[in-house]
């Protein structure tokens, strides 16, 4: 069996084609949003958002059964409620936004575990926590396509606003920009795409597809535009590789995609010529020898 065969053969199956399409769509939105989350230091907040989706799924399952649309709507609602709730708590009380997020998401996650247990077997919980790319339905694909298109649209049309709010929110505000709206919009898009990624990646691992490509790109790129592009390309390459790994090795899809992304991340952190560990080591040694590093 040739290598090419190993790559092409799995995609004869319809479920693998669905998985591939889903991965492509999520790579675009995840890669883009990840960059903003990383640059705004919202990486952990994204993780909190992902966990908070669970009770929405539980409630939707209790009320409507396994309807895909209902599960999406439930998760979306729970995520938006967490984002909004934290914003309200941090504005109106003494609690800062990170602590508000941390407290809310853990309560939501706990409620979610309880609700999912009420609603059926433990198998369901495992499914939502870790995802299953083999079960991507046409409805899943449609929702993912919508989320991805919306994200891409926002980044193309409102690129300057996103850049200003990410780089210098105070300047954005001083020039008449509505920073709070852009901030909430980014959080809402994150929730929407996390929800779309549930089927493929699962709650616990979904954020990996957002953060890891962005952090890897951050280690290589000196311009935001290139960083966004590299991030999307890394997300795409690793999710295809991850899906193939999952198929051939019989691993859960979310885990194998995250492992591929992790390999790229560690490779970048070590080997990036400007900002990697090896580069820093070389610089330190040079300076110790009294040799100035090349500019």
């Amino acid at each position, binding site marked *: 069996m040739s290598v090419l065969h190993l790559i092409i053969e799995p995609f004869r199956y319809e479920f693998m084609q669905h998985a591939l399409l889903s991965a492509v769509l999520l790579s675009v939105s995840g890669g883009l949003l990840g960059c903003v989350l990383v640059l705004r230091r919202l990486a952990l907040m994204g993780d909190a958002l992902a966990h908070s989706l669970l009770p929405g799924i539980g409630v939707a399952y209790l009320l409507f059964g396994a309807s895909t649309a209902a599960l999406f709507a439930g998760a979306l609602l729970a995520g938006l409620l967490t984002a909004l709730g934290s914003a309200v708590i941090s504005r109106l009380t003494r609690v800062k936004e990170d602590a508000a997020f941390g407290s809310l998401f853990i309560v939501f996650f706990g409620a979610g575990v309880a609700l999912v247990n009420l609603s059926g077997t433990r198998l369901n919980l495992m499914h939502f926590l870790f995802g299953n790319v083999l079960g991507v339905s046409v409805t899943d694909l449609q929702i993912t396509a919508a989320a991805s298109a919306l994200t891409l649209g926002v980044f193309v049309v409102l690129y300057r606003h996103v850049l200003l709010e990410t*780089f210098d929110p105070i300047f954005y505000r001083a020039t008449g920009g509505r920073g709070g709206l852009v901030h909430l919009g980014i959080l809402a898009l994150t929730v929407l795409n996390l929800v779309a990624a549930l089927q493929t990646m699962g709650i616990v691992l979904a954020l990996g597809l957002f953060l890891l490509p962005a952090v890897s790109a951050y280690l290589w790129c000196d311009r935001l535009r290139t960083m966004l592009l590299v991030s999307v390309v890394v997300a795409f390459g690793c999710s295809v590789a991850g899906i193939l790994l999952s198929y051939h090795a019989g691993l859960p899809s979310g885990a194998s995609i995250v492992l591929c992304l992790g390999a790229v991340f560690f490779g970048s952190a070590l080997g990036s010529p400007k900002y990697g560990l090896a580069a820093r080591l070389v610089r330190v040694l040079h300076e110790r020898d009294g040799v100035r590093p090349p500019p």
Partner: protein
Amino acid sequence: MSASSHNIIRLRDVTVLYGRVAALRGITVDIPCGSLTAVVGPNGAGKSTLLRAILGWLPLTAGEIRIGDAHPQHALPRLAYLPQRHVIDWDFPITVREVVEQGRYPALRMFHRLGQHDHELVDRALAELALTALADRQIHRLSGGQQQRVFLARALAQGADIFLLDEPMTGLDLFATEELTHIFLNWEAQGRTVLATMHDLELARKHFTQGLLLATELVAAGPIGGVLTEENIHRAYRDGHCVHDDPLGLARTTEFPR
């Protein structure tokens, strides 16, 4: 009315409350066009609050602010605000030119790109602040003084003529401070207005022509020498509303040239 009345920042009886605590109380002052004004006062005297109020970010509990004859909200294109340097993430993947280009963003329509006119303004701003050679450099590879100049250039590209700066000289070395002063004096000569909060009284006395001494209330305003007198400083730093004892006699160690 003379023409210069359009180019003045006028505060009338301005009061700003944070909850029940007054940050500014009953401030009435005119800041003339083309002046180099230092806003000085002890910590918590309302220096930053004053800048924010002029930008229209804070609801005034009483009083009014006018830029020329306009409400601050209608004068935004004339105003440029420079935050303290530490609030910026200097590792952000962006070049000097891209930061200066941001000055043109507010003027652009939704689907428009930077046009030739915008690029000219950006080039001119880079040239004026001697940044042309650094235009393609990453901002994390700049010195403190260069970083400050990048943000001044962005404000220039914006087309602003009133510059509100929050602690622009904090953390700069002697050379960078001199350089910044040189830029400000040039701007003053061109009729641009600079209003900067300063916590270092000696730097304010040395590099600014006008002063505005705050201690929640206005203690003194006018030419810097007349504002930073021993008596005024004493009033602002000891008898003001943000009273601290001065066991080390810091307020008295400054020199008072006549």
